[in-house]
């Protein structure tokens, strides 16, 4: 007898240890998942944060009309096509006299961004009186200089492994000593469209493109999704074969891979209806079809949650079924419907794959003006930039991701707040 108790006691310790281990496995599974999420967020924000600053170079520019090749300084056409590049290059030469050799001269020209000449042009056209004067101007620095200023290039590496050679570092040191290099808030990132030059590239085009695409998606998917949900939940005859088919369909659509919706858009909207590629209109159409199941399913759930007593009371007072539904049931379910819609829109905002299929991957520098202008969207912009080899683009990609995640967080918070409010009321 005693030995049996002892046996069980011995075993008990083992079983309790097992119990403890199992619990630790569970906790560590959660910890690993959360650690991954955190490392992703931290990694993205540390690489992306420097992109919100941009290096500027200060140069004394002698706006010589001879160099500009300009005779009449009030002729706007001549002002527009004057040779500003030469002026900028000459100013750099005067700043660093004695630069010899083709390679070094080219490197010198590449201290400032290509946008410098256009900046100068706009300045001169606005105020032609500054011609033949000397101006101290701040220009965008080239991406290599910018990366160096943010600590992205290690001086201690051997020269052949560095993007900036020794002579370039000497120039930068001189500029630094004369306070001619400065990091400022990167306003261009939010006010410019895409560009091949990292220092000029911004996300405004992609943001407006996303906004327009989301607008189309919302205007179509919200009314259609809610109407479909109301029909299926409130009006559809129960145990009808057709209604069953529609329901199974919607559930299946919710699990179809998003890239397949892109194929549909390509074959039907572009192939059959001849809608042009890469415009927000078609992006919105494809994303509408993709988000409809989400909106329908969540709207149905919140319609189902409205207590039947509300319906019965309205019907009892003589309201018709349409009146009952639209005057009483739908308003009661509205917070839930809106929550579902916001979550569906957040999904659509982050979606990339179907938009690649319908040609929204083109390089587009202009900011779109309407839903029929070629444009790109934020996630696609992220995908495009992530392919670029320049280091400055990597940090801009991360910054664009931070902006996208920011939008998503705001949308999800909105959904959470709405849900909380809704739950309190009931």
């Amino acid at each position, binding site marked *: 007898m005693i030995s049996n108790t002892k046996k069980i006691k011995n075993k008990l310790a083992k079983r309790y240890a*097992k119990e403890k281990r199992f619990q630790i496995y*569970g906790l560590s599974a*959660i910890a690993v998942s959360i650690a991954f999420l955190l490392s992703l967020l931290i990694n993205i924000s540390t690489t992306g944060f420097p992109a919100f600053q941009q290096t500027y170079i200060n140069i004394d520019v002698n706006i010589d009309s001879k160099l500009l090749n300009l005779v009449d300084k009030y002729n706007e056409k001549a002002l527009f096509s004057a040779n500003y590049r030469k002026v900028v290059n000459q100013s750099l030469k005067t700043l660093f006299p004695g630069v010899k050799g083709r390679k070094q001269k080219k490197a010198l020209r590449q201290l400032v961004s290509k946008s410098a000449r256009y900046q100068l042009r706009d300045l001169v056209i606005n105020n032609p009186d500054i011609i033949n004067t000397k101006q101290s101007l701040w220009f965008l620095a080239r991406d290599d200089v910018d990366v160096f200023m943010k600590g992205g290039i290690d001086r201690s590496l051997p020269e052949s492994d560095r993007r900036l050679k020794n002579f370039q570092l000497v120039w930068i040191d001189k500029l630094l000593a004369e306070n001619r290099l400065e990091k400022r808030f990167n306003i261009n990132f939010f006010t410019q469209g895409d560009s091949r030059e990292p220092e000029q590239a911004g996300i405004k085009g992609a943001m407006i493109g996303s906004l327009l695409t989301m607008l189309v998606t919302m205007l179509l998917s919200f009314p259609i999704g809610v109407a479909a949900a109301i029909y299926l939940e409130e009006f559809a005859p129960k145990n009808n074969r057709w209604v069953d088919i529609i329901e199974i369909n919607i559930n299946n659509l919710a699990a179809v891979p998003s*890239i397949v919706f892109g194929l549909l858009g*390509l074959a039907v909207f572009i*192939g059959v209806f001849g809608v042009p590629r890469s415009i927000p209109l078609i992006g919105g159409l494809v994303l509408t079809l993709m988000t409809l199941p989400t909106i329908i399913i969540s709207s149905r759930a919140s319609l189902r949650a409205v207590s039947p007593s509300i319906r019965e009371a309205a019907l009892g007072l003589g309201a018709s079924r349409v009146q009952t539904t639209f005057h009483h049931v739908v308003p009661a379910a509205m917070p839930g419907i809106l929550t579902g819609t916001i979550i569906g829109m957040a999904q659509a905002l*982050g979606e990339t794959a179907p938009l690649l299929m319908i040609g929204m991957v083109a390089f587009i520098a202009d900011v779109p003006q309407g839903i029929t202008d070629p444009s790109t969207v934020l996630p696609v912009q992220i995908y495009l930039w*992530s392919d670029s080899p320049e280091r400055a683009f990597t940090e801009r990609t991360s910054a664009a991701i931070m902006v996208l995640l920011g939008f998503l967080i705001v949308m999800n918070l909105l959904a959470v707040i709405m849900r909380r409010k809704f739950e309190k009321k009931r």
Partner: protein
Amino acid sequence: MTFGVIFTALMALLLLGYYIGKKRSIRLSDKSNQRLHSLPQHYGYLIAFWSSAPALLILLFWSVLESSVINSAIIAQLPVQFQQSSADEVELFINEIINLSHSGVTISDEVKRHAVFYYNELIEFSNWVKSLIVFVLAFMGMFIALAFVKPEMKARNLVERLIRWSMIGCALIAVLTTVGIIFSVIFESIIFFKTVNVFDFLFGAHWSPQEAIREDQVGGSGSFGALPLFVGTLLISFVALMIAVPLGLMSAIYLSEYSSPRFRLFAKPVLEMLAGIPTVVYGFFAAITVAPFIRDLGESLGLSLSSESALAAGIVMGVMIIPFVSSLSDDVISAVPQALRDGSYAMGATKSETIKQVIIPAALPGIVSGVLLAASRAIGETMIVVMAAGLSANLTFNPLEAVTTVTVQMVALLTGDQEFDSTKTLAAFALGLGLFLTTLVLNIISLYVVRKYQEQYD
């Protein structure tokens, strides 16, 4: 008049129709001393509908068909040698004409000038006829509907019937989407399988879709054996499930059985955040951070790893689908009745023994269904593999090597500029058909498993 102007005018007519209808019904009932059958606004809704909906329908139809009709009209009046050139050139020409007509630049080329002139004329004519038809229809609708307004007219019933039918229409869009998907992938796939044998496609081990541009080109015949893609997809999905199933399941068990309510309130939304992060972000993270990390780790262990290994893409994808496994498992584990747990405790079992021997078996169908859904998600996932896995079609089961997947190849085949009916484009649709069918079957099995094997305890 442009689409926007006509549309705005129609919306104004809609409001006007509502107002007139409402007023007229009230006046009629006053005059005849007869009670209205329905509320005045029901008459308003009815008039508003008839004065805008038919016109709007015509407007949409016209706008969709307009450009293709005009383009073919222009092509028809071009000189003969133009009409015989290839479809690409004709399309290019049409685009040039449209651009020229918008820019207003003077054109030297005789043919082009003529075409631009003709184009402008046609557009003007089309706009004219469009506006005329739309507005005639709108006013006709309004007046005819107004003529029908009588106090004894059952306006509410008519309006409600309209509402019901339009809601049915909205619900049918979901069905139409499915039909559209099926037809578009099947049609293109049938054309594809006319040039490429079905069995060569399914079981061929060599994938190189580059087609010969010139007749005499070497090594560009294009071969479409998709087996390496299927194997690659399965390999990456397998790695993903190896990550997601243990992590997701253990998280769900801990959250539903062990954790305090406060911890659960914090951890559950954080886990679900993993599903809310856009896949392009995961792809970037996989390509920039995880893949180099795993390669370095492998090198320090003396393994030779490709920088685009299936392992990196699979791990990141696995993390992405953790919430699918965990929240579905959480639901089914919570649905297991307390009586089963109490019974097990009463027999002297510890908590973990109860979970392993009672709760998991009881919840198994639901868990399996969740895993199948996660698998279908992994197979259809695109951006992570596009950015982190390669394009090289290796037929291998080794997760340390680079593989490619069905979705990667679909993107690669369709993002270039090519003709719509080239074999490459068609191949993408054939792959899409395979993808659609696979995920469909997985979803159906997952539904079936729950329906057939889940015990009902209530």
